[in-house]
């Protein structure tokens, strides 16, 4: 049971989100991974994510720029993870933008979108496990499917691509998770590296390609009690410039570094509460861009060991 709880906690505690960029279509980028992989364990988690952006940057300096006053979103996400074998874990994520809106600074108007985001399916493989050094390495792969809303309107206006709930693009997302535990210590560490490569959107409306995204996350977790775990992470991400109609969009992409404190608390019956806050500590954008001010996440998860589930109907009555 302890192992199950540990697996549940760790898989959630690393589920920080990459919200450094304020304005891009589709789901907030996730970078979840797990230390442990328990066969036949299903982990179901539900999260609410909030992001707020109101600061323009030029390069690595904040500037006064009166165009967008702010941009925010509230995103509800459902994640499923299943240990297919002791080495392979299957993952899926789906989310819904309850509110994705922007307010202009130079005119008293706002734009609001809501609806289903992308569907993300993936797997993670437990490649390497050195028990004496307590190191594990788990590569994985995710694919995003643009199943959500990509043609939302506001009155007589079809909303621009960057506020649509779905990204409108298939994405490939290779990942590597490296974990390290320390003997007789309540401290553990993990590093999560990932990339995101988007397919060009080729429609009548646009020929847009998101810039490639590269992320690195370094996290320390301290188990302060049997139920409470505290975490602190440094999350770096770099996005290349986007392309539209085969031209590079010069004022897109950049580098961002966030500090992400988090905690996780295990309740009875394998329920786990977790929360984090994302605080930007360094931003360096190409040209002038609106950047993220803060992000928040709150979630609850539960793990089920499917082999131990009892049938609801006694077989002898059938």
């Amino acid at each position: 049971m302890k192992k199950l709880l540990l697996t549940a906690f760790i898989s959630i505690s690393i589920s920080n989100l990459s919200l450094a960029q304020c304005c891009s279509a589709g789901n907030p980028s996730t970078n979840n991974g797990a230390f442990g992989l328990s066969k036949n364990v299903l982990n179901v988690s539900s999260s609410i994510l909030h992001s707020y952006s109101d600061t323009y940057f030029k390069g690595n300096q904040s500037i006064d720029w009166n165009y967008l006053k702010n941009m925010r979103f509230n995103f509800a996400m459902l994640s499923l993870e299943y240990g297919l074998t002791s080495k392979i874990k299957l993952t899926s994520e789906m989310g819904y933008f309850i509110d994705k809106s922007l307010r202009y600074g130079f005119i008293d108007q706002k734009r609001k979108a809501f609806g289903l985001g992308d569907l993300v399916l993936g797997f993670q493989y437990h490649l390497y496990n050195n028990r004496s050094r307590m190191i594990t390495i788990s590569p994985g792969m995710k694919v995003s499917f643009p199943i959500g809303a990509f043609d939302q309107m506001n009155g007589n206006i079809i909303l621009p691509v960057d506020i649509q709930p779905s990204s409108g693009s298939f994405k490939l997302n290779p990942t590597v998770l490296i974990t390290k535990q320390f003997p007789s210590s309540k401290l553990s560490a993990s590093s999560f590296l990932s990339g995101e490569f988007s397919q060009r959107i080729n429609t009548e409306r646009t020929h847009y390609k998101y810039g490639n995204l590269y992320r690195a996350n370094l996290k320390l977790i301290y188990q302060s009690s049997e139920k409470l775990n505290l975490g602190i992470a440094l999350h770096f991400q770099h996005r290349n410039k986007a392309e539209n109609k085969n031209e590079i969009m010069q004022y897109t992409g950049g580098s961002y570094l966030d500090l992400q404190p988090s905690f996780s608390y295990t309740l009875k019956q394998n329920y786990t509460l977790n929360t984090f806050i994302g605080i930007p500590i360094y931003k360096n954008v190409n040209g002038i861009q609106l950047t993220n001010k803060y992000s928040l996440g709150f979630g609850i998860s539960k793990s089920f060991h499917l082999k131990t589930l009892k049938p609801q109907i006694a077989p002898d009555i059938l």
Partner: protein
Amino acid sequence: MKVVSLVLAIFGLAFLSSCDKENKENVTTEKPTIISLTSDKTQIKYGSSEPAKLKCTASGEDLNYIWEVDFGDLFIINSDGSEVQFTASPCCMGEKRISCEVSNGGGKVTKSIIITIIE
């Protein structure tokens, strides 16, 4: 007897009313025509200082206007939705194709215009 007469009268009115509705539905609406899509500028600077004003002139009945651009911001500036103001943030430099779709019960037509966003 009075009740029967009343019921017959109600059914009669309902029948006449439905005939009238059918006749109305049978009247075909002509597909709209876009006469012109114009802009007071072909090139604007990013930001809000120099918006372009676009006008979609169309003929037909019960017209509905829908505007679209992939990146940039459109704001309706008149009551029927045939005129918009266009601005863009720095992200969106380059050529932008703005489309005006006009529709009614007879169908829809679309016309586009290119506006370039510069630094």
